[in-house]
């Protein structure tokens, strides 16, 4: 079981736990404000944009080319931007902290 923490734009801290699935699904299940996940995780809506906490960036890794294209036109994009639908719980480090991008 991994612990993953989301920080919303209102600075609400939501600590979640999961073994599998995507981080978008996890956020939606835990009603994290600002993460809609409209397209269900196929990288078409960009409503699950997060900023990865800097210290975890290398462990999480950067976006794929298609994901990066989606992010290119998104507001509030940073060097640590990812779409949480493209991040799998199984592939991210325990204790990960993410900030919701809107």
């Amino acid at each position, binding site marked *: 079981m991994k612990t993953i923490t989301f920080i919303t734009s209102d600075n609400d801290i939501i600590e979640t736990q999961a073994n599998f699935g995507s981080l978008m699904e996890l956020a939606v299940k835990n009603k994290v404000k600002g993460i*809609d996940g*409209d*397209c*269900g*995780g*196929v*990288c*078409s*809506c960009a409503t699950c944009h997060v900023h990865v906490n800097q210290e975890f960036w290398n462990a999480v890794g950067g976006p*794929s080319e*298609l*994901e990066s*294209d*989606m992010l290119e*036109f998104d507001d509030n994009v940073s060097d640590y931007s990812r779409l949480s639908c*493209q991040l799998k719980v199984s592939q991210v480090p325990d204790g990960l902290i993410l900030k919701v991008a809107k």
Partner: protein
Amino acid sequence: MKKSKIDDPFKEARETKGFGTMNDQNDPVTMILGHKDVRKCAHNWKTFQSGGDEIGRIVVPSEVHIRDTRQIPFEVDPPQHKSYRDLVEPWFKRPLEEAYQEKLTDIINIIVDEALTKGSMEVVSEFALKLQSRALTLLLNIPFEESELWISWGTHVFRSEDTALDGDKANVLYDYIDAQIDKAIANPGDDLYSKLLASEIDGKTLTKEEVKGVLILTFAGGRDTVINAITNTIAYFADNPQALQQLRDQPEHLNSAIEELLRYYSPLTQMGRVVAEDTQVCEHAVKAQSRISMCWASANRDERVFENPNEVVLDRKVNPHVAFGFGTHNCLGATHARQILRILLNTLTQKVGCMQITAAKENIEDLDEFNRKVGFDSLQVAFHKL
């Protein structure tokens, strides 16, 4: 050839120059065809405007001659756009609520059961139009019976047999909405009209004209698009019975299947913008006050983004389609539309063994340089129980 197939008429132009041109009522449109260019233009609202002085001009075909009410929030640019969008967004997210989904499931169950009992049905008018109209009562939060009137209007509100834009028919809708607004003023309830009439933006109550603008968009934006999405979905599963079985066996692919059908069928071909300043797209000069369009249907077949773009791959995982548009003005009704498709697919897999198309009349859009099939004028289908 399978009846459900939709070709990509834009391929050559997209690959050679990146744009096409069409004459729309003597107001030409430069059609942007590539995925990245389409998204770039959609993102750049300062140069490619939605909120110009001429109301209805960004729609292709243009509605300048049949409409003088500004559609909201669609024909408003930032920063004002945000106030309107923030106001209506929670209402249009209601399809995520369980109670809404239960009612939508009832509506869809009744129509699918009727198709199975009758054995054969004309899907555009008897299935898709009914489903769209009945589902719209949920989105507006008004009594179900109201849908009878909209169904009686037929599939086209703006279009008659001989013309793409019919002012008299459009007036039927506008007069109807005016009357409903007056009714809501006299007797407020918990419907969308009343909710908007009771709302404020920047300390000012919404005017009747603003309320009308939101409602026209709600009626017009979700009519032929939803009808096409439903009809094309039925056609696809009629042509590909193994795909229905695949979803029965692997329901975890339901979501990616919906997004893929949206990509492939792209129910809305394009949407326009007015150019605010002299600029260029795809190394092609476009003058201030001319029009461009973002061709979602072409972008969704861009082989630089989608592998095997002309095939329906139901479990396509990464699918950055633009069937609901992109950026600031992305489709407000997308949550409702997705929920309709989700429940429709669920119901079909639970109840329908197979379907066959017995007659079809294609709906082909004439876009000058291009002809694009967007769906069907009529589609006769035989339905068989599971």
